């Protein structure tokens, strides 16, 4: 529960972050053990084949999962605070859709032979998406215009992606595109980590810097501006932060939905509802959720590995419904 000390500092906020850090560390270690092959922890740091499985296959996958989860969780918390809408998620700006379009383009043309081409195309897609957003929304700082621009961009990129799928030169390319779009961390290497993590880190710095302005927006735009919030600066910090974090996440793992939507709701009852207080716990809980879910899909007894993107959607849809029911009750 929320607790305040005499000075009003949210002590439980720190406690929550510490708990999440410990849980995340534990989950990351556990995730190294998850997989079809059992490797005894005593052999993790050895120099044989089983150590290779841990250090070159499972560890990068875990690190990447944590980074992407943190990115999506924080981006979701920022979007909800910025749009003052609990149903907003990082996809609203259209960045994930345009990033996916970039990746699909590289698959369509069969460029995916190099490990770097697909992520490069995905990042280029995210960049072009942000540029278009800037053109569409302009310098107005208007929230409605901006959200509309994001929705337009999102549906445009979505339909172009469908076009790519329907026009794919070979059934193989179609399958490859569809599978990739579902999002997964399978077979990710340190290369992917090196590509994604620095970009995600920069993006998260932008997101973190929005905290105070998001707090002020709790009182509405006029009150926030009267307290010195620069809404245009806030807008571009949010776009850059979401663009970099989500763009890098999509580049590395495809579309993993619902994390950005769910996680802020999970942490809010514990962190308090002040938007800035939700940012860091959302990043930690997002990492925890993705690493946990990715471990689960690895050990589930199925013929082929369940795609992480699908697993998250299966988890997310019922959550979304529960959220709507809860809001319905609160409104009536």
């Amino acid at each position, binding site marked *: 529960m929320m607790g305040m000390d005499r000075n*009003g500092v949210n002590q439980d906020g720190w406690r929550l972050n510490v708990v999440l850090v410990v849980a995340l560390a534990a989950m990351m270690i556990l995730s190294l053990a998850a997989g079809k092959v059992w490797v005894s922890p005593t052999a993790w740091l050895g120099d044989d084949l089983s150590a290779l499985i841990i250090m070159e296959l499972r560890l990068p996958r875990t690190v990447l999962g944590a980074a992407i989860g943190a990115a999506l969780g924080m981006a979701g918390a920022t979007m909800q605070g910025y749009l003052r809408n609990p149903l907003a998620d990082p996809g609203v700006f259209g960045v994930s859709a345009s990033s996916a379009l970039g990746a699909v383009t590289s698959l369509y043309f069969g460029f995916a032979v190099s490990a770097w081409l697909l992520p490069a195309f995905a990042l280029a897609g995210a960049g072009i998406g942000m540029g278009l957003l800037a053109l569409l929304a302009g310098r107005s700082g208007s929230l409605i215009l901006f959200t509309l621009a994001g929705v337009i961009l999102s549906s445009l990129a979505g339909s172009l992606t469908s076009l790519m799928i329907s026009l794919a030169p070979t059934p193989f390319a179609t399958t490859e595109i569809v599978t990739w779009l579902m999002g997964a961390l399978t077979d990710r290497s340190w290369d992917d980590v090196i590509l994604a993590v620095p970009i995600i880190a920069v993006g998260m710095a932008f997101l973190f810097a929005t905290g*105070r302005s998001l707090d002020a927006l709790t009182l*509405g735009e*006029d009150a926030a501006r009267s307290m*010195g919030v620069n809404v245009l600066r806030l807008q571009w910090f949010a776009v850059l932060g979401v663009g970099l974090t989500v763009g890098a996440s999509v580049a590395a793992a495809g579309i993993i939905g619902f994390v950005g939507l769910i996680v802020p709701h999970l942490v809010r009852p514990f962190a308090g509802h*002040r938007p800035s207080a939700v940012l860091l716990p959302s990043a930690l809980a997002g990492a925890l959720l993705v690493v946990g879910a990715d471990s689960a899909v690895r050990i589930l007894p199925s013929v082929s590995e369940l795609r992480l993107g699908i697993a998250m959607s299966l988890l997310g849809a019922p959550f979304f419904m529960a959220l709507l029911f809860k809001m319905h009750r609160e409104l009536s």
Partner: protein
Amino acid sequence: MVPVTEILAFEALSLTLRGRKILNDISGRFQPGRVTVILGANGAGKSSLLSCLSGLREPQSGTVTLGDRALLSLEGKERGQLIGLLPQRPDIHWNVDVKTLVGLGRLPHSGRWGMSANDHQAVARAMAATDCTELSARKAMRLSGGEQGRVLLARVLAGEPQWLLADEPLASLDPAHQFDVLERLKNYTAAGNGVIVVLHDLTQAARFADDIMIMKEGTILAAGPRDQVMTADIMAQAYGVEVQIGTSDTGEPLVVPVRRL
């Protein structure tokens, strides 16, 4: 260590929105330590003037000055420290508790790493001044309209601005809460701060204003001490209604519109 409140003035202010002249080359000044009520018919430009005075809107021409400094030359944060705005529509978006909400009023003052002891004292003072202390742990979204009005006023007071600007703070408040809000605004001038309020209720305006500025169609029809401006003649020009001005049994002013002219 209370700094002396400077005079807030505007000079040759013009504002055009979507081709319509909202403010038409107007000038005026507000005295600190007094409540100035801005009156005028709907669309007279009251809210637009207030948004220029609070720095939310940049006029096409003219300047707003605080002392000898142009308002728009100030950093947003400093402007936020000096001029507090209570916007017209109460807006509370997240289910934060009252103390957190009032604490947001310290944002122009507090550093990156949270609130200082000074900030907490200011919040406590603001909550005491508005009788919100007991609501401290309540969720702000769950409060009644009157309670929300008090809490949002506490938010502005917590920033301890030299000038407090309130846009129709009485909307949706019952008479008892209307008195509460106006008394508190009046009290805020006792320490030398300036208060500017946009009102529609003429009797409340006559009771609480020290000065009245009355607007019509983007211009200032009259401005000055209450008794000079609150006349049947000026009200008729401003609103197009006939008003009767009298006093209650206990000597309070009564301003009653009686018919449309």
